Protein backbone atom coordinates (compact mmCIF):
# COMPACT_ATOMS: atom_id res chain seq x y z
CA UNK A 1 0.00 0.00 0.00
CA UNK A 2 1.08 3.57 -0.60
CA UNK A 3 1.22 6.09 2.23
CA UNK A 4 1.76 9.83 2.06
CA UNK A 5 3.89 11.25 4.83
CA UNK A 6 3.20 14.94 5.44
CA UNK A 7 6.03 16.42 7.42
CA UNK A 8 4.70 19.33 9.45
CA UNK A 9 6.24 21.80 11.84
CA UNK A 10 6.16 25.44 12.98
CA UNK A 11 8.60 28.11 11.76
CA UNK A 12 11.39 26.66 13.86
CA UNK A 13 11.22 23.52 11.74
CA UNK A 14 12.73 25.48 8.86
CA UNK A 15 16.00 25.62 10.77
CA UNK A 16 15.94 21.85 11.11
CA UNK A 17 15.26 21.42 7.42
CA UNK A 18 18.82 22.57 6.71
CA UNK A 19 20.10 19.61 8.68
CA UNK A 20 18.72 17.15 6.13
CA UNK A 21 17.24 13.81 7.02
CA UNK A 22 20.23 12.24 8.71
CA UNK A 23 20.43 9.14 6.55
CA UNK A 24 16.68 8.49 6.61
CA UNK A 25 16.29 8.98 2.84
CA UNK A 26 19.13 6.59 2.11
CA UNK A 27 17.79 3.97 4.53
CA UNK A 28 14.26 4.08 3.13
CA UNK A 29 15.53 3.96 -0.44
CA UNK A 30 17.66 0.96 0.38
CA UNK A 31 14.66 -0.78 1.97
CA UNK A 32 12.75 -0.12 -1.24
CA UNK A 33 10.04 1.90 0.53
CA UNK A 34 10.70 5.44 -0.65
CA UNK A 35 8.94 6.36 -3.89
CA UNK A 36 8.90 10.14 -3.83
CA UNK A 37 10.40 12.68 -1.48
CA UNK A 38 10.72 16.42 -1.40
CA UNK A 39 11.20 19.36 0.91
CA UNK A 40 9.14 22.51 0.43
CA UNK A 41 10.02 26.22 0.26
CA UNK A 42 8.45 28.20 3.15
CA UNK A 43 4.65 28.68 3.19
CA UNK A 44 5.08 32.45 2.61
CA UNK A 45 6.05 31.58 -0.95
CA UNK A 46 2.86 29.65 -1.59
CA UNK A 47 0.20 30.77 -4.06
CA UNK A 48 -3.32 29.43 -3.59
CA UNK A 49 -5.37 28.75 -6.68
CA UNK A 50 -9.17 28.53 -6.90
CA UNK A 51 -11.51 28.69 -9.83
CA UNK A 52 -15.05 29.92 -9.07
CA UNK A 53 -17.61 30.80 -11.75
CA UNK A 54 -14.82 30.29 -14.29
CA UNK A 55 -12.80 33.00 -12.58
CA UNK A 56 -9.27 32.33 -11.48
CA UNK A 57 -8.83 33.47 -7.89
CA UNK A 58 -5.25 33.74 -6.76
CA UNK A 59 -4.06 34.52 -3.29
CA UNK A 60 -0.74 34.64 -1.51
CA UNK A 61 0.23 32.33 1.24
CA UNK A 62 -0.87 28.84 2.18
CA UNK A 63 -4.47 27.59 2.05
CA UNK A 64 -4.75 27.44 5.83
CA UNK A 65 -2.99 29.92 8.11
CA UNK A 66 -2.06 27.55 10.89
CA UNK A 67 0.94 27.41 13.12
CA UNK A 68 1.89 23.98 11.82
CA UNK A 69 2.69 24.01 8.13
CA UNK A 70 3.71 21.33 5.69
CA UNK A 71 7.46 21.42 5.27
CA UNK A 72 7.93 18.34 3.14
CA UNK A 73 6.38 15.16 1.88
CA UNK A 74 7.24 11.59 1.02
CA UNK A 75 5.41 8.72 -0.59
CA UNK A 76 6.22 5.28 0.76
CA UNK A 77 5.24 1.86 -0.53
CA UNK A 78 4.73 -0.26 2.59
CA UNK A 79 3.37 -3.69 3.43
CA UNK A 80 0.96 -2.22 5.97
CA UNK A 81 0.25 0.67 8.33
CA UNK A 82 2.66 -0.63 10.96
CA UNK A 83 5.55 -0.42 8.51
CA UNK A 84 4.55 3.12 7.48
CA UNK A 85 4.29 4.22 11.13
CA UNK A 86 7.64 2.68 11.92
CA UNK A 87 9.24 4.48 8.95
CA UNK A 88 7.62 7.80 9.94
CA UNK A 89 8.80 7.41 13.53
CA UNK A 90 12.39 7.07 12.29
CA UNK A 91 12.24 10.35 10.35
CA UNK A 92 14.20 13.06 12.18
CA UNK A 93 11.28 15.50 11.84
CA UNK A 94 9.17 13.24 14.08
CA UNK A 95 11.33 14.39 17.00
CA UNK A 96 10.61 18.12 16.57
CA UNK A 97 7.53 18.34 14.33
CA UNK A 98 4.60 16.12 13.41
CA UNK A 99 4.34 13.56 10.64
CA UNK A 100 0.91 12.78 9.32
CA UNK A 101 0.67 9.31 7.80
CA UNK A 102 -2.13 9.11 5.22
CA UNK A 103 -3.07 5.94 3.38
CA UNK A 104 -3.47 6.71 -0.33
CA UNK A 105 -6.28 5.48 -2.53
CA UNK A 106 -5.22 2.66 -4.84
CA UNK A 107 -3.92 4.07 -8.15
Amino acid sequence: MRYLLLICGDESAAAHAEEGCGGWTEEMTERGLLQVTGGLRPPAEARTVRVRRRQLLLSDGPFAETKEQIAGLCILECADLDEAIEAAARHPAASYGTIEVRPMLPP
Partner: protein
Amino acid sequence: MSTDPVRAAVGAAFRDEWGRVVATLIRTTGNWDLAEECAQDAFALALQRWPRDGIPGRPGAWLTTAARNRAIDVLRRKAVGAAKLREVAAMSYEPEPRAGVDESGVPDDRLRLMFTCCHPALSLEARVALTLRTLAGLTTAEIARAFLASEPTMAKRLVRAKHKIQNAGIPYRVPPAHLLPERTPGVLGVLYLLFNEGYSATAGADLVRQNLCAEAIRLARVLATLMPDEAEAAGLLALMLLHDARRAARLDARGDLVTLEDQDRGTWDAAAIAEGVRVLTGALRREEPGPYQVQAAIAACHATAATPADTDWAQIAALYERLARFLPTPVVELNHAVAVGMAQGPAAGLPLVAALEASGKLAGYHLLPATRADLLRRLGRLPEAAVAYREALELASTDAERRFLRRRLAETGGPA
Protein backbone atom coordinates in the same frame (compact mmCIF):
# COMPACT_ATOMS: atom_id res chain seq x y z
CA MET B 1 -31.48 -36.56 20.14
CA SER B 2 -33.62 -34.05 22.02
CA THR B 3 -33.11 -30.40 21.20
CA ASP B 4 -32.37 -28.99 24.64
CA PRO B 5 -28.92 -30.53 25.17
CA VAL B 6 -28.14 -29.60 21.58
CA ARG B 7 -29.19 -25.99 22.17
CA ALA B 8 -26.99 -25.95 25.25
CA ALA B 9 -24.11 -27.39 23.24
CA VAL B 10 -24.52 -24.78 20.50
CA GLY B 11 -24.69 -22.08 23.17
CA ALA B 12 -21.51 -23.34 24.79
CA ALA B 13 -19.82 -23.61 21.39
CA PHE B 14 -20.87 -20.04 20.65
CA ARG B 15 -19.17 -18.76 23.79
CA ASP B 16 -16.05 -20.87 23.26
CA GLU B 17 -15.69 -20.88 19.50
CA TRP B 18 -17.25 -17.73 18.02
CA GLY B 19 -14.08 -15.65 18.21
CA ARG B 20 -12.00 -18.49 16.87
CA VAL B 21 -14.26 -19.11 13.87
CA VAL B 22 -14.41 -15.40 13.00
CA ALA B 23 -10.65 -15.00 13.45
CA THR B 24 -9.93 -17.90 11.10
CA LEU B 25 -12.41 -16.69 8.50
CA ILE B 26 -10.93 -13.19 8.52
CA ARG B 27 -7.54 -14.72 7.85
CA THR B 28 -8.74 -16.90 4.98
CA THR B 29 -11.12 -14.40 3.34
CA GLY B 30 -9.59 -11.06 4.36
CA ASN B 31 -13.17 -9.81 4.67
CA TRP B 32 -14.48 -8.95 8.13
CA ASP B 33 -18.15 -8.69 7.22
CA LEU B 34 -18.12 -11.93 5.29
CA ALA B 35 -16.36 -13.63 8.20
CA GLU B 36 -19.03 -12.57 10.68
CA GLU B 37 -21.86 -13.43 8.33
CA CYS B 38 -20.50 -16.92 7.63
CA ALA B 39 -19.77 -17.59 11.30
CA GLN B 40 -23.39 -16.72 12.05
CA ASP B 41 -24.57 -19.08 9.30
CA ALA B 42 -22.38 -21.86 10.68
CA PHE B 43 -24.02 -21.60 14.10
CA ALA B 44 -27.47 -21.57 12.51
CA LEU B 45 -26.51 -24.69 10.58
CA ALA B 46 -25.34 -26.36 13.79
CA LEU B 47 -28.80 -25.79 15.30
CA GLN B 48 -30.28 -27.66 12.32
CA ARG B 49 -27.77 -30.45 11.95
CA TRP B 50 -26.62 -31.33 15.43
CA PRO B 51 -30.05 -32.59 16.60
CA ARG B 52 -30.02 -35.00 13.65
CA ASP B 53 -26.32 -35.94 13.38
CA GLY B 54 -25.28 -35.54 17.01
CA ILE B 55 -22.87 -33.05 18.56
CA PRO B 56 -19.52 -33.32 16.77
CA GLY B 57 -16.48 -34.37 18.76
CA ARG B 58 -14.68 -31.16 17.87
CA PRO B 59 -17.37 -28.48 17.60
CA GLY B 60 -14.83 -25.77 16.82
CA ALA B 61 -13.46 -27.65 13.82
CA TRP B 62 -17.00 -28.47 12.61
CA LEU B 63 -18.07 -24.83 12.86
CA THR B 64 -14.93 -23.52 11.17
CA THR B 65 -15.38 -25.92 8.27
CA ALA B 66 -19.07 -25.02 7.95
CA ALA B 67 -18.26 -21.32 7.98
CA ARG B 68 -15.48 -21.75 5.42
CA ASN B 69 -17.72 -23.75 3.08
CA ARG B 70 -20.32 -21.05 3.38
CA ALA B 71 -17.73 -18.39 2.51
CA ILE B 72 -16.64 -20.37 -0.53
CA ASP B 73 -20.30 -20.57 -1.64
CA VAL B 74 -20.83 -16.85 -1.20
CA LEU B 75 -17.63 -15.95 -3.02
CA ARG B 76 -18.34 -18.41 -5.84
CA ARG B 77 -21.79 -16.93 -6.33
CA LYS B 78 -20.35 -13.44 -6.41
CA ALA B 79 -17.37 -14.46 -8.51
CA VAL B 80 -17.34 -12.63 -11.80
CA GLY B 81 -13.76 -12.64 -12.92
CA ALA B 82 -10.87 -15.03 -12.93
CA ALA B 83 -9.29 -13.19 -10.00
CA LYS B 84 -12.31 -13.96 -7.81
CA LEU B 85 -12.21 -17.62 -8.75
CA ARG B 86 -8.54 -17.76 -7.87
CA GLU B 87 -9.47 -16.38 -4.45
CA VAL B 88 -12.04 -19.13 -4.01
CA ALA B 89 -9.56 -21.76 -5.09
CA ALA B 90 -6.99 -20.47 -2.63
CA MET B 91 -9.56 -20.63 0.16
CA SER B 92 -10.67 -24.16 -0.57
CA TYR B 93 -7.15 -25.28 0.04
CA GLU B 94 -6.21 -24.82 3.66
CA PRO B 95 -2.52 -25.61 4.00
CA GLU B 96 -1.51 -27.66 7.03
CA PRO B 97 -0.97 -24.93 9.59
CA ARG B 98 2.26 -25.12 11.54
CA ALA B 99 2.05 -22.78 14.47
CA GLY B 100 -0.81 -21.98 16.80
CA VAL B 101 -2.58 -25.32 16.47
CA ASP B 102 -3.86 -26.87 19.64
CA GLU B 103 -5.36 -30.29 20.29
CA SER B 104 -8.63 -29.21 18.66
CA GLY B 105 -6.77 -29.25 15.35
CA VAL B 106 -7.93 -25.75 14.45
CA PRO B 107 -5.34 -23.00 14.14
CA ASP B 108 -6.04 -20.28 16.67
CA ASP B 109 -6.12 -16.88 15.01
CA ARG B 110 -7.70 -15.10 17.95
CA LEU B 111 -4.46 -13.50 19.06
CA ARG B 112 -4.01 -11.70 15.74
CA LEU B 113 -7.65 -10.69 15.87
CA MET B 114 -7.11 -9.24 19.35
CA PHE B 115 -4.09 -7.23 18.27
CA THR B 116 -5.84 -5.97 15.15
CA CYS B 117 -8.99 -4.95 17.05
CA CYS B 118 -6.82 -3.12 19.58
CA HIS B 119 -4.54 -1.41 17.04
CA PRO B 120 -3.51 2.07 18.26
CA ALA B 121 -4.63 3.63 14.96
CA LEU B 122 -8.26 2.90 16.00
CA SER B 123 -10.06 5.02 18.56
CA LEU B 124 -10.49 3.47 21.99
CA GLU B 125 -14.28 3.30 21.48
CA ALA B 126 -13.78 1.48 18.19
CA ARG B 127 -11.36 -0.99 19.76
CA VAL B 128 -13.81 -1.84 22.51
CA ALA B 129 -16.74 -2.27 20.12
CA LEU B 130 -14.77 -4.38 17.63
CA THR B 131 -13.42 -6.64 20.36
CA LEU B 132 -16.92 -7.30 21.70
CA ARG B 133 -18.37 -7.92 18.24
CA THR B 134 -15.69 -10.07 16.61
CA LEU B 135 -14.11 -11.83 19.58
CA ALA B 136 -16.92 -12.11 22.10
CA GLY B 137 -19.76 -12.38 19.56
CA LEU B 138 -22.01 -9.75 21.12
CA THR B 139 -24.55 -8.31 18.68
CA THR B 140 -24.42 -4.66 17.71
CA ALA B 141 -27.62 -4.10 19.72
CA GLU B 142 -26.05 -5.67 22.82
CA ILE B 143 -22.88 -3.59 22.52
CA ALA B 144 -24.98 -0.45 22.09
CA ARG B 145 -26.93 -1.31 25.26
CA ALA B 146 -23.76 -2.08 27.19
CA PHE B 147 -22.31 1.32 26.36
CA LEU B 148 -25.56 3.28 26.55
CA ALA B 149 -25.34 4.27 22.90
CA SER B 150 -28.00 3.98 20.22
CA GLU B 151 -27.85 0.98 17.93
CA PRO B 152 -27.33 3.02 14.73
CA THR B 153 -24.45 4.90 16.40
CA MET B 154 -22.82 1.63 17.40
CA ALA B 155 -23.39 0.10 13.97
CA LYS B 156 -21.75 3.13 12.37
CA ARG B 157 -18.83 2.91 14.75
CA LEU B 158 -18.27 -0.74 13.85
CA VAL B 159 -18.52 -0.14 10.10
CA ARG B 160 -16.12 2.78 10.29
CA ALA B 161 -13.61 0.75 12.28
CA LYS B 162 -13.71 -2.13 9.81
CA HIS B 163 -13.29 0.26 6.89
CA LYS B 164 -10.34 1.86 8.58
CA ILE B 165 -8.65 -1.51 9.06
CA GLN B 166 -9.10 -2.24 5.38
CA ASN B 167 -8.34 1.22 3.97
CA ALA B 168 -5.46 2.21 6.18
CA GLY B 169 -3.78 -1.17 5.81
CA ILE B 170 -3.86 -2.15 9.48
CA PRO B 171 -2.17 -5.57 9.38
CA TYR B 172 -3.99 -8.72 10.53
CA ARG B 173 -1.25 -10.23 12.61
CA VAL B 174 0.39 -10.52 15.97
CA PRO B 175 3.01 -7.73 15.95
CA PRO B 176 6.63 -8.83 15.61
CA ALA B 177 8.59 -9.28 18.85
CA HIS B 178 10.13 -5.81 18.81
CA LEU B 179 6.68 -4.16 18.69
CA LEU B 180 5.08 -6.36 21.37
CA PRO B 181 6.22 -4.34 24.40
CA GLU B 182 4.48 -1.21 23.08
CA ARG B 183 1.41 -3.00 21.67
CA THR B 184 0.53 -5.55 24.35
CA PRO B 185 -0.51 -2.94 26.95
CA GLY B 186 -3.08 -1.68 24.43
CA VAL B 187 -4.76 -5.08 24.28
CA LEU B 188 -4.64 -5.48 28.06
CA GLY B 189 -6.06 -1.96 28.43
CA VAL B 190 -9.12 -2.73 26.29
CA LEU B 191 -9.89 -5.90 28.25
CA TYR B 192 -9.46 -4.07 31.55
CA LEU B 193 -11.77 -1.29 30.36
CA LEU B 194 -14.40 -3.90 29.47
CA PHE B 195 -14.09 -5.42 32.91
CA ASN B 196 -14.38 -2.09 34.68
CA GLU B 197 -17.45 -1.14 32.67
CA GLY B 198 -19.11 -4.33 33.87
CA TYR B 199 -17.83 -3.94 37.41
CA SER B 200 -19.20 -0.44 37.75
CA ALA B 201 -22.62 -1.51 36.45
CA THR B 202 -25.20 -1.25 39.18
CA ALA B 203 -27.48 -4.12 40.15
CA GLY B 204 -30.35 -2.62 38.18
CA ALA B 205 -28.28 -2.11 35.05
CA ASP B 206 -28.86 -4.00 31.83
CA LEU B 207 -27.77 -7.64 32.09
CA VAL B 208 -25.56 -7.23 29.02
CA ARG B 209 -23.70 -4.54 30.88
CA GLN B 210 -23.35 -6.67 33.99
CA ASN B 211 -22.09 -9.55 31.85
CA LEU B 212 -19.19 -7.48 30.53
CA CYS B 213 -17.12 -8.78 33.48
CA ALA B 214 -17.65 -12.36 32.39
CA GLU B 215 -16.78 -11.49 28.77
CA ALA B 216 -13.65 -9.66 29.88
CA ILE B 217 -12.55 -12.59 32.04
CA ARG B 218 -13.18 -15.01 29.18
CA LEU B 219 -11.08 -12.92 26.80
CA ALA B 220 -8.33 -12.41 29.40
CA ARG B 221 -8.21 -16.17 29.85
CA VAL B 222 -7.78 -16.62 26.09
CA LEU B 223 -5.07 -13.97 26.00
CA ALA B 224 -3.19 -15.47 28.95
CA THR B 225 -3.32 -18.89 27.28
CA LEU B 226 -2.18 -17.59 23.90
CA MET B 227 0.60 -15.44 25.42
CA PRO B 228 2.01 -17.76 28.09
CA ASP B 229 5.24 -15.73 28.27
CA GLU B 230 3.46 -12.45 29.01
CA ALA B 231 3.36 -12.09 32.79
CA GLU B 232 1.09 -9.05 32.61
CA ALA B 233 -1.57 -11.01 30.69
CA ALA B 234 -1.72 -13.47 33.58
CA GLY B 235 -1.58 -10.54 36.01
CA LEU B 236 -4.64 -8.98 34.37
CA LEU B 237 -6.56 -12.27 34.51
CA ALA B 238 -5.68 -12.65 38.19
CA LEU B 239 -6.74 -9.08 38.91
CA MET B 240 -10.12 -9.61 37.25
CA LEU B 241 -10.74 -12.91 39.03
CA LEU B 242 -9.88 -11.45 42.43
CA HIS B 243 -12.13 -8.42 41.95
CA ASP B 244 -14.96 -10.43 40.46
CA ALA B 245 -14.88 -12.82 43.43
CA ARG B 246 -16.11 -9.97 45.62
CA ARG B 247 -18.80 -8.74 43.23
CA ALA B 248 -21.85 -10.02 45.11
CA ALA B 249 -20.67 -8.61 48.45
CA ARG B 250 -19.96 -5.16 47.06
CA LEU B 251 -23.51 -3.85 47.11
CA ASP B 252 -26.21 -4.22 49.74
CA ALA B 253 -29.89 -4.83 49.12
CA ARG B 254 -30.46 -1.10 48.48
CA GLY B 255 -27.67 -1.05 45.93
CA ASP B 256 -25.41 0.90 48.28
CA LEU B 257 -21.67 0.36 48.19
CA VAL B 258 -20.45 -1.82 51.04
CA THR B 259 -16.86 -1.05 52.07
CA LEU B 260 -14.35 -3.91 52.11
CA GLU B 261 -14.32 -3.73 55.90
CA ASP B 262 -18.07 -4.34 56.16
CA GLN B 263 -18.44 -6.93 53.40
CA ASP B 264 -19.67 -10.40 54.31
CA ARG B 265 -16.57 -12.39 53.44
CA GLY B 266 -18.60 -15.60 53.40
CA THR B 267 -20.21 -14.46 50.16
CA TRP B 268 -16.87 -14.06 48.38
CA ASP B 269 -16.29 -16.64 45.65
CA ALA B 270 -13.59 -18.85 47.20
CA ALA B 271 -12.94 -20.76 43.96
CA ALA B 272 -12.35 -17.55 42.00
CA ILE B 273 -10.03 -16.26 44.72
CA ALA B 274 -8.06 -19.52 44.71
CA GLU B 275 -7.74 -19.39 40.92
CA GLY B 276 -6.75 -15.72 41.00
CA VAL B 277 -4.03 -16.38 43.55
CA ARG B 278 -2.80 -19.38 41.56
CA VAL B 279 -2.64 -17.41 38.29
CA LEU B 280 -0.92 -14.50 40.05
CA THR B 281 1.67 -16.77 41.68
CA GLY B 282 2.49 -18.22 38.26
CA ALA B 283 2.85 -14.72 36.81
CA LEU B 284 5.07 -13.44 39.63
CA ARG B 285 7.41 -16.38 39.16
CA ARG B 286 8.42 -14.91 35.78
CA GLU B 287 9.89 -11.91 37.62
CA GLU B 288 8.65 -9.42 35.05
CA PRO B 289 6.60 -7.15 37.28
CA GLY B 290 4.02 -4.76 35.88
CA PRO B 291 1.04 -2.69 37.01
CA TYR B 292 -1.56 -5.47 36.59
CA GLN B 293 0.43 -7.94 38.66
CA VAL B 294 0.94 -5.37 41.42
CA GLN B 295 -2.77 -4.50 41.47
CA ALA B 296 -3.62 -8.20 41.52
CA ALA B 297 -1.24 -8.65 44.45
CA ILE B 298 -3.04 -5.88 46.33
CA ALA B 299 -6.40 -7.48 45.54
CA ALA B 300 -5.01 -10.84 46.73
CA CYS B 301 -3.98 -9.31 50.08
CA HIS B 302 -7.59 -8.22 50.62
CA ALA B 303 -9.18 -11.37 49.25
CA THR B 304 -7.12 -13.77 51.34
CA ALA B 305 -7.63 -12.00 54.68
CA ALA B 306 -10.12 -14.00 56.75
CA THR B 307 -11.26 -10.87 58.62
CA PRO B 308 -10.57 -7.16 58.05
CA ALA B 309 -8.22 -7.24 61.05
CA ASP B 310 -6.12 -9.93 59.32
CA THR B 311 -5.39 -7.66 56.34
CA ASP B 312 -1.66 -7.26 55.77
CA TRP B 313 -1.68 -3.48 55.43
CA ALA B 314 2.09 -3.14 55.60
CA GLN B 315 2.35 -5.34 52.50
CA ILE B 316 -0.43 -3.37 50.78
CA ALA B 317 1.31 -0.06 51.55
CA ALA B 318 4.54 -1.43 50.05
CA LEU B 319 2.65 -2.63 46.96
CA TYR B 320 1.02 0.78 46.43
CA GLU B 321 4.45 2.37 46.60
CA ARG B 322 5.52 -0.07 43.90
CA LEU B 323 2.40 0.60 41.85
CA ALA B 324 3.10 4.34 41.95
CA ARG B 325 6.30 3.65 40.00
CA PHE B 326 4.26 2.07 37.17
CA LEU B 327 1.22 4.33 37.47
CA PRO B 328 2.29 7.64 39.00
CA THR B 329 -1.23 8.97 39.50
CA PRO B 330 -2.58 10.94 42.48
CA VAL B 331 -5.29 8.29 43.06
CA VAL B 332 -2.58 5.66 43.58
CA GLU B 333 -0.85 8.08 45.98
CA LEU B 334 -4.11 8.50 47.90
CA ASN B 335 -4.54 4.72 48.18
CA HIS B 336 -0.97 4.53 49.41
CA ALA B 337 -1.80 7.09 52.10
CA VAL B 338 -4.83 5.03 53.18
CA ALA B 339 -2.72 1.86 53.41
CA VAL B 340 -0.01 3.65 55.43
CA GLY B 341 -2.74 4.98 57.73
CA MET B 342 -3.90 1.40 58.30
CA ALA B 343 -0.43 -0.12 58.64
CA GLN B 344 1.26 2.50 60.81
CA GLY B 345 -1.73 4.27 62.32
CA PRO B 346 -3.80 7.26 61.20
CA ALA B 347 -1.16 9.78 62.32
CA ALA B 348 1.24 8.38 59.70
CA GLY B 349 -1.33 8.74 56.92
CA LEU B 350 -2.24 12.37 57.60
CA PRO B 351 0.96 14.03 56.29
CA LEU B 352 0.68 12.04 53.04
CA VAL B 353 -2.91 13.23 52.56
CA ALA B 354 -1.87 16.80 53.45
CA ALA B 355 0.89 16.68 50.80
CA LEU B 356 -1.65 15.54 48.19
CA GLU B 357 -4.03 18.34 49.19
CA ALA B 358 -1.22 20.89 48.95
CA SER B 359 -0.37 19.65 45.45
CA GLY B 360 -3.95 20.39 44.32
CA LYS B 361 -3.80 17.33 42.08
CA LEU B 362 -7.02 15.81 43.39
CA ALA B 363 -8.97 19.02 43.91
CA GLY B 364 -12.70 18.28 43.73
CA TYR B 365 -12.30 14.53 44.34
CA HIS B 366 -14.53 13.65 47.30
CA LEU B 367 -12.38 10.73 48.45
CA LEU B 368 -9.56 13.13 49.33
CA PRO B 369 -11.41 14.96 52.16
CA ALA B 370 -13.19 11.68 52.99
CA THR B 371 -9.82 10.01 53.60
CA ARG B 372 -8.62 12.89 55.76
CA ALA B 373 -11.92 12.76 57.67
CA ASP B 374 -11.50 9.04 58.29
CA LEU B 375 -7.95 9.45 59.61
CA LEU B 376 -9.04 12.32 61.90
CA ARG B 377 -12.03 10.33 63.17
CA ARG B 378 -9.78 7.42 64.09
CA LEU B 379 -7.44 9.83 65.91
CA GLY B 380 -10.42 11.05 67.94
CA ARG B 381 -10.16 14.56 66.46
CA LEU B 382 -13.91 14.56 65.88
CA PRO B 383 -14.68 18.25 65.24
CA GLU B 384 -11.98 18.40 62.53
CA ALA B 385 -13.26 15.09 61.12
CA ALA B 386 -16.79 16.52 60.91
CA VAL B 387 -15.52 19.50 58.90
CA ALA B 388 -13.74 17.16 56.47
CA TYR B 389 -16.81 14.89 56.13
CA ARG B 390 -18.91 17.91 55.25
CA GLU B 391 -16.35 18.93 52.66
CA ALA B 392 -16.52 15.41 51.16
CA LEU B 393 -20.35 15.50 51.20
CA GLU B 394 -20.29 18.64 49.08
CA LEU B 395 -18.19 16.88 46.45
CA ALA B 396 -19.77 13.39 46.43
CA SER B 397 -21.65 12.72 43.20
CA THR B 398 -23.91 9.74 43.97
CA ASP B 399 -26.64 9.21 46.57
CA ALA B 400 -24.96 6.04 47.83
CA GLU B 401 -21.75 7.95 48.54
CA ARG B 402 -23.66 10.71 50.30
CA ARG B 403 -25.57 8.22 52.48
CA PHE B 404 -22.27 6.61 53.48
CA LEU B 405 -20.64 9.94 54.34
CA ARG B 406 -23.70 11.11 56.32
CA ARG B 407 -23.56 7.94 58.43
CA ARG B 408 -19.90 8.61 59.18
CA LEU B 409 -20.58 12.26 59.91
CA ALA B 410 -23.24 11.24 62.43
CA GLU B 411 -20.64 9.06 64.18
CA THR B 412 -18.50 12.13 64.80
CA GLY B 413 -21.36 13.57 66.82
CA GLY B 414 -21.45 16.67 64.65
CA PRO B 415 -24.67 17.93 63.07
CA ALA B 416 -25.26 16.94 59.44
